[in-house]
């Protein structure tokens, strides 16, 4: 008889799936919204309990899905890292929904709102499963679930440009998941296993014997490329600005903050648990990831500098931040992976905050999006202004904010490797570039425009858009606090992550 707390990861996944199925028959969108918030809250609490249990006992456990032990039946595996990520992800889903609540009910037709919440709940289930899975094929199925739900979140706004952005996103994702599936097929053909522990043993055996060297290399390459495409690794990021920039606020926040991370977490799990970092370094995979990560950091920022549409600017900035995460993985050391995990958390708090604040700022400016029309909007909703400022400063990497700590960890992780100079230089360059687009945006929202400009902008805003938005302010406050917590009390969190990576 196992401890009851070990059932919680499985409860979380099933709760999210059940909530998703039930929201499709709830007639009122608002009720579905409240249910989704409740479910996310419950999942966060359950994950916190699991985190407490695994961290205190310093263990990670495998939970068989059914009676059959590995390698015969499905299983999920939970350690400190998985529990932490599950907690953060579900909390951020709730925060994003709260932050984008008004835009959400404004953008999505009333009779389709319940379907939107179905998608959100199942997306959460998909993300949780990607974090927890101990089976590569389960990983594939839940990748597809995440793909469909993410596309549906983009298209929920239902304008022409949205539909086009969705179909581009969908085709790109399909490419990614097909490559992943082919890679999986090759891997399965030379090892014969799907569960990660046995797969790992078989892969080590194949790598040592050298018999199927070519299929193994191809399989690893395809799996990494597939997941890379789906998480907008640098050369494959072209779909992202349209998809994330054009969606409704809550969708943009969830997509940018979480969905990309889900695939990265799976990639990380595969790299460490199945292929092991040593083999990855030996095969040169880490170097490739490192190079693409560094390129992404620079080119994502350059793309953002050229944008004047605030949400698209934030979307490009996501490309750069994803580059940071890949850089950490590409270093090929445990310290690099820890830094990446920390950055996943930081970005999962910052980006939803920035998107929600940008959505709110554009709502108080009559739904204008270009920075020019947002001038002085911070005074119309001070909470959104402060939230945007905190998020932007954290992205730039000012001390006391979360982003600084992750940059610190990236820098110190790069010291013992061979690519120290290159990595440090790119971090510095990227910081400067980040500042170059966030500072003008900050100045734009805090500088008072001339009276006639302001009047012209305000003419498009209705009084109820300008009124105080309670749920947004709550969400923004919580996310802002989270950024400070990550920036100041980071030590306990990194020790959890270190334990998690050790026990992955």
């Amino acid at each position, binding site marked *: 008889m196992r401890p009851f707390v070990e059932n919680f990861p499985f409860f979380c996944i099933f709760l999210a799936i059940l909530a998703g199925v039930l929201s499709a028959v709830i007639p009122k969108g608002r009720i579905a919204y409240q249910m989704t918030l409740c479910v996310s809250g419950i999942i966060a609490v359950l994950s916190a309990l699991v985190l407490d249990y695994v961290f205190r006992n310093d263990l990670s456990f495998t939970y068989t899905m059914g009676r059959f032990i590995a390698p015969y039946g499905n299983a999920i595996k939970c350690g400190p890292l998985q529990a932490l990520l599950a907690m953060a992800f579900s909390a951020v889903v709730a925060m994003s929904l709260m932050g984008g609540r008004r835009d959400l009910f404004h953008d999505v037709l009333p009779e389709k709102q319940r379907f939107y919440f179905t998608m959100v709940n199942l997306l959460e289930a998909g993300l949780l499963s990607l974090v927890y899975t101990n089976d590569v*094929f389960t990983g594939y*199925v839940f990748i*597809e679930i995440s*793909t*469909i739900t993410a*596309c549906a979140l983009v*298209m929920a706004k239902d304008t*022409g*440009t949205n*539909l*086009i*952005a*969705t*179909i581009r996103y*969908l*085709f790109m994702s*399909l*490419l990614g998941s*097909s490559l992943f*599936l*082919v890679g999986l*097929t090759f891997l*399965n*053909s030379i090892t014969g296993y*799907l569960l990660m522990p046995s797969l790992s043993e078989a892969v080590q055996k194949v790598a040592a014997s050298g018999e199927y060297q070519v299929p193994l290399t191809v399989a690893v390459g395809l799996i990494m490329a597939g997941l890379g495409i789906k998480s907008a690794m640098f050369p494959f990021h072209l779909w992202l600005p349209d998809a994330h920039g054009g969606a409704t606020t809550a969708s943009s926040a969830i997509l940018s903050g979480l969905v990309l991370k889900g695939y990265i977490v799976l990639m990380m799990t595969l790299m460490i648990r199945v292929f092991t970092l040593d083999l990855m370094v030996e095969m040169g995979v880490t170097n490739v990831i490192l190079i693409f990560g560094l390129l992404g950091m620079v080119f994502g920022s350059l793309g953002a500098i050229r944008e004047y549409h605030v949400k698209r600017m934030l979307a490009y900035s996501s490309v750069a931040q994803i580059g940071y995460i890949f850089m950490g993985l590409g270093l090929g050391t445990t310290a690099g992976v820890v830094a990446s995990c920390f950055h996943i958390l930081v970005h999962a708090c910052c980006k939803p905050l920035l998107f929600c604040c940008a959505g709110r700022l554009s709502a108080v400016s009559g739904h204008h999006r270009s920075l020019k029309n947002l001038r002085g909007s911070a005074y119309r909703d001070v909470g959104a202004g402060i939230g945007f400022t905190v998020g932007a400063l954290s992205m730039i990497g000012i001390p006391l904010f979360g982003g600084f700590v992750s940059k610190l960890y990236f820098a110190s992780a790069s010291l013992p490797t061979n690519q120290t100079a290159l990595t440090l230089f790119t971090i510095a360059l990227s910081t400067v570039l980040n500042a170059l687009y966030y500072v003008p945006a900050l100045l734009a929202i805090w500088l008072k425009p001339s009276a006639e400009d302001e009047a012209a902008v305000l003419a498009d805003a209705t009084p109820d858009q300008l009124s105080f938005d309670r749920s947004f302010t709550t969400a923004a406050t919580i996310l802002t606090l989270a950024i400070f917590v990550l920036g100041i009390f980071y030590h306990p969190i990194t020790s959890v992550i270190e334990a998690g990576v050790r026990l992955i």
Partner: protein
Amino acid sequence: MLETVLQNRFAVTAVILFGIGFTNLLLQQNLLKKVVGFNIMDSAVFLLLASLGYIEGGIAPIVGDRGFDPLYINPIPSGLVLTGIVVSVSITAFSLALIQRIYRHYGTIELRELLERAKKEED
């Protein structure tokens, strides 16, 4: 070389099919043809998977009263193919619905024209 090709004929066919599908998905401008390309690509993967499980002289893995004497094929790839097909059907339906809506909205499904129109709309 030729012998290897003949031995692994299903894998080779699958790779060729996959290439056709992949090229279609990337190079076609017509959204509908892209979907067709994607379907070809997925069929190739299923062919590859299904051929992995075959054992020469094996029969369908329904054990029943026949006991364990006859040689059965490997049931795992068959199950995986089933899952893959379902996923592929769902995604095809989703993309076709999207294309239908796009056609109703813009009157065209050529990606190039659509991108031009979308750019114009955005300004």
